[in-house]
């Protein structure tokens, strides 16, 4: 626990200082990292800790973005706290019924059912043009943070200063809460479900109910991430709910390593910065990303964090042998 806390605080300090040091552009990338970090913390509670592969998590990211759009644009509520509240409530209201249906199944069936729900939401957004704006999507206006409008700032400064720190705060809180969750009694029951659901039942673990709670928590985390994305882009559009977006969320999680707590956060950061630099270098960036995914899946199933841990263990091993000789 000690090392994790130190690493966590160091990262937090570095990220907090970034706006004073870095150019605005990398800060906009970090903003995307905060949004995806939250979404992946939720996804990994489901995937890494409870053993359920959701292939429709983008549904909740889109839900968050559209909540931000409806609040700021249609209802004129500009307080970000209100937007977050609406996004969380919407996520729960959608996640409970969808979850009730999905948690009865596991592995491939759970994945396909969540994919079907994701695509249902995508075609609803696309289809009911008069309500949702169809493929044009819905604009998201700039919110006020803790009541402050910062109207004297242009949007880039707003995004890379106050909104940046607010989003970093959300990610920090989200990370601490998730850390407590997975290390709580509730967390060990989730891990038991992942390892052996039948045996867990015999030890009194309410498998379906806990899977549903994990599904709802994952949905809420993804929706909060979605509001950050919506405000950063200034628009919520149906592509956010497309199945390939869910695929990318899983790509990031496995890239970082789904069997460790920090894996998804590392995966999100690496994915965002890697894709950004690739897109400027070659028009065939999808090919390169596809190959990176193949290498990770085949050679480093425990992801980058798993790789780092293995290297660290080996280094410690060498040092111990060296001392022993």
């Amino acid at each position, binding site marked *: 626990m000690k090392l994790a806390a130190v690493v966590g605080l160091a990262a937090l300090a570095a990220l907090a200082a970034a706006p004073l040091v870095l150019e605005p552009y990398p800060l906009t990338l970090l903003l995307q990292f905060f949004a995806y970090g939250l979404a992946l913390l939720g996804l990994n509670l489901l995937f890494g800790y409870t053993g359920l592969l959701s292939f429709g998590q983008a549904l909740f990211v889109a839900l968050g973005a559209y909540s931000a759009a409806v609040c700021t644009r249609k209802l004129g509520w500009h307080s970000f706290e209100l937007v977050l509240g609406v996004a969380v409530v919407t996520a729960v209201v959608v996640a409970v019924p969808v979850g009730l249906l999905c948690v009865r199944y596991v592995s491939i069936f759970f994945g396909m059912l969540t994919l079907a729900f994701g695509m249902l939401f995508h075609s609803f957004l696309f289809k009911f043009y008069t309500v949702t704006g169809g493929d044009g999507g819905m604009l998201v206006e700039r919110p006020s943070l803790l009541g402050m409008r910062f109207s004297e700032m242009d949007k880039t400064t707003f995004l890379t200063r106050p909104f940046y720190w607010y989003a970093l705060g959300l990610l920090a809180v989200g990370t601490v809460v998730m850390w407590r969750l997975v290390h709580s009694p509730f967390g060990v029951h989730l891990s038991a479900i992942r390892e052996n659901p039948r*045996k867990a039942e*015999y030890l009194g673990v309410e498998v379906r109910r806990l899977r549903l709670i994990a599904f709802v928590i994952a949905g809420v985390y993804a929706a909060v991430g979605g509001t950050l994305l919506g405000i950063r882009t200034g628009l919520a559009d149906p592509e956010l709910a497309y199945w390939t977006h869910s695929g990318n969320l899983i790509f990031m999680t496995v890239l970082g390593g789904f069997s460790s707590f920090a894996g998804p956060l590392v995966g999100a950061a690496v994915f965002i910065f890697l894709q950004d630099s690739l897109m400027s270098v070659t028009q065939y960036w999808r090919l390169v990303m596809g190959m990176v995914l193949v290498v990770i899946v085949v050679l480093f199933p425990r992801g980058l964090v798993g790789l780092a841990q293995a290297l660290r263990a080996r280094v410690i091993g060498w040092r111990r042998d060296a001392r022993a000789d």
Partner: protein
Amino acid sequence: MPALIETRDVSKRYGSFNALSGVTLAIAADEFVSIVGHNGAGKTTLVNVLTGLLRPTSGTVTFKGMDVAGVGPVRLARLGMARAFQLVHIFPGLTVRQTLAVAVVSQTGKAFHFLTSLARDAQVQERVEAVARLFGFEQLDLEARSLSQGAKKLLDVASAFALRPEVILLDEPTSGVSTGDKHQIMRVLVDAAKSFGVKAIIQIEHDMDLVSEYSDRVIALHQGQVLADRPPAAFFGDAELVATVVGKRRVRD
């Protein structure tokens, strides 16, 4: 003394094959019951019915007076009935400590403690260490998958005991363990039962030495029916009964 578990005229049919027919039993506190019989005599089906996994085709099953027919293992675990399997069931990726903690968390009703730290929960850790000590586990932070086959079996049973159940059903607890250790395990089970206040142990067992030495009641099943229900001495005294239940040669393994 009121019966802990009671079945009245329970039968279970799979299509035309009736695995159990007309089984009426009552198991009270302080009994160590062994269920014996050929493979296919209905032993496992009976345990599945008793543990709420299977709903009987007809008849009633009550636990502490409550009808528990087919109610499912989760509720029964909460009511105080635990079960360990013939095939080892463990959580490969969890440590010994975590495995036992899963049972203790259920039993102490802390499953919905979202934000408290499990590691720093004194009550839970204390109970975990007590069970571990009793079952002879020194290193609690080893992953279950890295344990020996015997240790895995022991952990499986230990996690059932960690539920502090009133009744525990064991499906051949010593199978796959060398004959030398069998008695050692049985002694651990009996001590654990005593110290955790387990009221009754029901076990499916093929090894007649263990049946005669430890159980104080033998229920013999044959083609889904209760052939005999008597103390070990009376059971082993009746050669003809032993022959039909156990078959000609004595079980050596």
